[in-house]
């Protein structure tokens, strides 16, 4: 099960933080189809945020087809996201690439900048 | 002081004022111990007998003296009971809720303000009446031994209240007045003082007027020998009458005596002049006004009635004020 961590000073809307952290958990394989998301009650008790914020985030995830609400039971994960589990071939290739970049003398910020620019080039116009 | 059977606001009230309730119980126990102890002490010395067979307490019976004294003061303390009860209701029971802000807690629960105040007042009333009953009972334990002795007549202040119904009526009036004053003056100490003052004034006023409720009985007789009222009567007035039956103001003759020159030189202090003056004014007989002991209960009931009316009025006003302020 995921545990949300809300950063009030990040400037990112609270519901978006929940959406992003859920997606992250899906990408990392921490959440798999059939898993139940924490109830709004559980989330707000731990984070002291407004219940409607959680519901709004869950509605957004549902709209994107990632989760489904089952009446009286809770909200459940429907699909995996992106490349799947952490040990997928794509992740391996990326890890190889990162190792090569490091040997080539690039530091963390150089790599991040390079990655972001490639990301921007190939995913221009897509939603965040 | 079991709180097991109590519910709702009554449970809360009893729980809140537990200490006061224990204190009241302790006061009753102490008074019972004192009076009971004094009666036992008194019984250690056998009574003496007059020639006609009537008994009287021996002069060296210190226990009897102490009991008599305890009853004299005890009666006075009993008169303070309405003041104490009224002050408690006005202060700790009502005003303090407003002063400390706990009314905000009490009046936002599911019970209505009326239920809240009613529970407080009924709890106070039940307790106060029980305590009064117990204390008057204790008083009677002593009273049955010393009644009729000096300062302890049926009509004396203290015994009069303690042996009748009025003390209960005073307590009821004090509770109602306290409930009203406590709401009007939302300061604990000021409300206590004000209620004590009001009840003190009521006690004084009724004490001054209670023997005017019923018309007095009168005996008349020839001027000269002492004229006695019936046994156990409360004498209220005595004086002289003219032949036509009109009450004569003696000061007229005393003024005449005082105006006489050379009064200091007379060896009878002017009595001859006084008697001559009475004769001139046709004074031939005298009278005594009194309340017979049979007036005790009617007077008690009239006074109690006045107090209960006051209690009803104050209680009505107290609930009106509450409803006006807290819908």
């Amino acid at each position: 099960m995921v545990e949300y961590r809300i950063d009030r000073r990040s400037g990112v809307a609270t519901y978006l933080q929940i959406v992003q952290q859920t997606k992250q958990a899906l990408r990392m394989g921490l959440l798999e189809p059939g898993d139940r998301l924490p109830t709004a009650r559980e989330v707000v008790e731990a984070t002291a945020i407004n219940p409607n914020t959680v519901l709004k985030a869950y509605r957004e995830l549902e709209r994107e087809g990632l989760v489904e609400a089952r009446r009286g039971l809770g909200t459940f994960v429907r699909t995996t996201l992106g490349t799947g589990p952490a040990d997928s071939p794509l992740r391996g290739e990326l890890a190889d690439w990162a190792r090569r970049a490091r040997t080539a003398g690039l530091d963390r910020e150089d790599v991040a900048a390079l990655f972001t620019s490639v990301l921007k080039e190939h995913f221009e116009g897509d939603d965040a | 002081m079991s709180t097991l059977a109590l519910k709702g606001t009554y449970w809360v009230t009893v729980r809140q004022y537990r200490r006061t309730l224990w204190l009241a119980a302790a006061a009753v126990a102490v008074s019972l111990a004192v009076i009971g102890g004094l009666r036992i002490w008194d019984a250690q010395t056998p009574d003496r007998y007059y020639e006609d067979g009537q008994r009287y307490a021996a002069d060296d019976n210190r226990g009897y003296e102490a009991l008599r004294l305890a009853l004299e003061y005890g009666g006075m303390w009993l008169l303070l009971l309405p003041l104490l009860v009224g002050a408690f209701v006005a202060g700790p029971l009502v005003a303090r809720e407003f002063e400390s802000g706990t009314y905000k807690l009490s009046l936002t629960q599911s019970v209505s303000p009326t239920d809240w105040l009613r529970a407080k007042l009924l709890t106070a009333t039940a307790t106060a009446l029980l305590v009064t009953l117990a204390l008057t009972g204790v008083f009677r334990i002593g009273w049955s031994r010393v009644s009729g002795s000096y300062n302890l007549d049926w009509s004396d202040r203290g015994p009069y209240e303690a042996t009748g119904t009025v003390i209960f009526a005073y307590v009821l009036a004090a509770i109602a007045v306290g409930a009203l004053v406590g709401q009007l003056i939302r300061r604990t100490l000021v409300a206590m003082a004000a209620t004590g003052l009001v009840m003190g004034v009521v006690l004084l006023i009724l004490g001054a007027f209670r023997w005017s409720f019923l018309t007095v009985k009168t005996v008349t007789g020839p001027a000269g020998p002492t004229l006695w009222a019936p046994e156990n009567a409360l004498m209220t007035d005595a004086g002289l009458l003219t032949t036509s039956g009109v009450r004569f103001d003696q000061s007229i003759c005393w003024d005449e005596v005082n105006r006489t020159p050379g009064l200091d030189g007379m060896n009878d202090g002017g009595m001859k002049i006084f008697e001559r003056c009475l004769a001139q004014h046709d004074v031939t007989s005298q009278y005594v006004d009194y309340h017979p002991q049979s007036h005790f209960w009617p007077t008690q009931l009239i006074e109690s009635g006045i107090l209960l009316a006051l209690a009803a009025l104050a209680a009505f006003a107290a609930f009106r004020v509450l409803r006006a302020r807290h819908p």
Partner: protein
Amino acid sequence: MTRDGIALKADLLGKKYGGRGQGWALRECDFALPTGRVCALVGPNGAGKSTLLALAAGLLRPTEGTIEAPDREHLAYVAQDKPLHPRLTVADTLRMGRELNPGRWNDATARRVIADTLDPEAVVRTLSGGQRTRVALALALGKRPELLLLDEPMADLDPLARHQLMGLLMADAAEHGTTVVMSSHILTELEGACDHLLLLHGGRIRLDGPVDELLAAHTLLTGPVADLAPHTVVESRTTGRQLTALIRREGPVEGPWETRDPSLEDLLLAHLRTTEGAPA
């Protein structure tokens, strides 16, 4: 009771305290708070927050206008000074909640607020400010209210307890759909928890509405000095040739300005600063 969908409603509500030199504590307040909202009642000290809450709780009568709230069985109110009976123990205080709210009281809810932080046999008089707050909140939540009115609820709490109790409040709201109104002059304790805002200043309502709508309706912009019409300027400052302004948008913002969405704090501060000098 209030009409469907509205938990608290005020119509031209006004309150004037008696006594010499006392003016209007609240004037011409009009608002309707939908059920299920968590509403932040904010404003500087003396803005009328406590008066509004006491009126809603039925402890005061309005001088003019009306306020519609659930009856006393269905609302709970925690006053700013957290009044409790000083001689009762914590356990007795909770028992009082049960005795005075027959049929509504939920002991488990109340005990969850107390958690394991308090000795049930501790006498209320000996408790710290934060512990009193906990007991007062336990009484309020144990009653299972439809409307929960909290006057400066978190003022006496340390950050950890604040977070935990705010979490409990939100959990209660999530589970039972409780409408919550809480006042504060510390914004950080409310941001994130509240989805509705009532800004009071000088006894009048300056801002009222759902937080996200209010934020969406406003824009912070920086750029050259120019006429900002048709937008409503809430607050503007000029430094040399540069203008910084918070506006309530009327249509899209077109011009040479750099724009960004305001935070709740930006919004409140701007509104408070502009009403500072305004007649109350």
